[in-house]
């Protein structure tokens, strides 16, 4: 029987374009310290000495300019002589890291674990343009198959846009305006998140008029790359009692799936089966229904690397039937006062995308919502006491992970 696992500490650094005053291991230290402060706010005295293992989420060696960056973080965090394992699953690194840290505690091989994500991309620098982004994109582009796809210009945007364009061919949506609504929503939500990189009050027209990146994605349809770290402290039920944790958020479902990384091998290019299988597995474990999930959760932190792909995720995660994602955002479904608020923190588009940290930040953010501790972007209605976080990544978004969380202690009125 797996042990029950709770999130008892959450630490998220600000998401910023560039930290000139911190290295990746210094950022990791900051998030870890914030997670201890959160876990100890009611008088517990957890330190790194109490942690039995760490699972690290770090996507890209070329960003960190270091192979095995986890072992250098392990040293800086004072975590020597304990297990430390790194997960690297592209944009889904965070979600997969939560899943593996969950597994360590649920299995009983650790009672108290750290789940830590960090990424620092903007040390990459393109000397020709004197900017960071083209070189950051180069370091990411090596995620595509290096022989058959990379040489012809397969990149993050041209890979993700494929699913969205194929979906459009099948269903006639999402339209460019429907996609733009995701950008309006997520940049807008970020205004109330002091840790967000891109808070902006914008209109659909602003998005439509922003420069074209990869047809039909425009600049404001895309997330920005960020530097940040996020940490969660996970504990089993016995530790939760011992430490007298007042607001544990239980991880009740974890699901992950890898679909074919060669998009051309997929029978249906307009659908991300990784999302569908990950969601179904996570919901099933949590005792929820894929077909009724809309009535069973309060909110969702989604992986909105690109606006159009958030729209198709509504369908793949079971919020609405296939082909109705575009209509759902037009009707306000994923907005803060909608049926399932999606990305209350601003998501990747509003808060930022610090790859290894992102899915851990979104899991932490969903947990904060359930605790009623999200601050200015706290939702007014948390009734079911359940939320999900969602991560995707890799070539053609082949990796996906979904985490279901629950507040079983009763919801504090925000």
């Amino acid at each position, binding site marked *: 029987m797996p042990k029950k696992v709770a999130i008892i500490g959450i630490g998220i650094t600000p998401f910023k374009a560039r930290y*000139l005053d911190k290295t990746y291991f210094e950022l990791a230290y900051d998030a870890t310290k914030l997670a201890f402060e959160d876990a100890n706010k009611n008088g517990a005295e957890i330190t790194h000495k109490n942690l039995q293992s760490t699972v690290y989420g770090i996507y890209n060696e070329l960003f960190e300019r270091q192979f095995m960056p986890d072992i250098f973080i392990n040293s800086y965090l004072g975590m020597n002589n304990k297990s430390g394992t790194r997960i690297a699953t592209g944009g889904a690194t965070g979600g997969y890291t939560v899943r593996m840290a969950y597994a360590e505690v649920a299995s009983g091989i650790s009672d108290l674990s750290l789940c830590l994500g960090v990424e620092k991309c903007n040390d990459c620098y393109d000397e020709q343009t004197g900017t960071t982004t083209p070189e950051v994109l180069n370091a990411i582009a090596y995620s595509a198959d290096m022989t058959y796809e990379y040489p012809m210009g*397969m990149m993050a945007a041209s890979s993700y846009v494929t699913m969205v364009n*194929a979906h459009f061919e099948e269903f006639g949506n999402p339209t460019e305006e429907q996609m733009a609504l995701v950008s309006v929503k997520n940049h807008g939500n970020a205004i109330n998140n002091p840790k967000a990189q891109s808070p902006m009050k914008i209109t659909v027209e602003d998005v439509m008029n922003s420069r074209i990146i990869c047809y039909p994605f425009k600049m404001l349809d895309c997330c920005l790359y960020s530097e940040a770290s996020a940490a969660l402290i996970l504990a089993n039920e016995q530790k939760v009692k011992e430490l007298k944790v007042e607001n544990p958020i239980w991880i009740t479902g974890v699901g992950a799936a890898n679909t074919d990384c060669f998009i051309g091998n997929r029978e249906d*290019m307009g659908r991300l089966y990784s999302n569908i299988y990950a969601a179904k597995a996570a919901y099933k474990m949590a005792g929820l229904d894929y077909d009724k999930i809309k009535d069973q959760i309060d909110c969702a932190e989604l992986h909105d690397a690109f606006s159009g792909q958030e729209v198709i995720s509504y369908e793949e995660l079971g919020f609405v039937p296939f082909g109705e994602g575009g209509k759902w955002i037009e009707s306000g479904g994923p907005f803060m006062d909608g049926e399932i608020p999606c990305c209350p923190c601003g998501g990747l588009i509003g808060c930022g995308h610090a790859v290894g940290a992102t899915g851990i930040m979104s899991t932490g953010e969903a947990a904060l919502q359930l605790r009623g501790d999200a601050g200015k972007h706290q939702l007014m209605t948390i009734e079911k006491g359940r939320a999900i976080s969602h991560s995707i990544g890799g070539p053609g978004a082949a990796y996906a992970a979904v985490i279901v969380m629950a507040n079983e202690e009763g919801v504090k009125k925000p």
Partner: protein
Amino acid sequence: MSEKFEDHQIRDKIQIDYKYTMGGQSKFFIELMKNKKLHGTKCTKCGKIWMPPRKNCSECYTPAEWVEISHTGTIEVSTIVWYGAAEFIKNVPYGCGFIKLDGVDTALFQGIFSENLVPSKIKKGRRVRAVFKKPDEREGKMTDFFFVPEDEYEIWANKPEFEGGE
């Protein structure tokens, strides 16, 4: 008393040279480079044709054998890239997408060139045909060829730097 922070940045570059083997897929690249032929593989059990080729069928765990593939196919999905990695910024805008070559079960990612590069010209369902670099320019790499809309084939095949397949 807090000291004013001053950052220090170090310029650096990581570079590794390779001469890597394509192993069981080598024939695809040799035929492409020498003979302008496209070779896929056909599973000896289920008959599925793989492109890019794989010497073993991932569904049946059975060997797959080489088969010559048509130079024509249909666009499944495409895009036009206007901004990107440092490596490709010099090429923008460029078209690319997944092409199902006639008779093949999977779709191949490739560049899609057009005299009039607009989304409608390279959209789903458009027929395309392969155009190749000249023999002394071909290196046995995916960049040895690209696709063009069938109605532009003669234009592209007659450009001095390219040639059609036979």
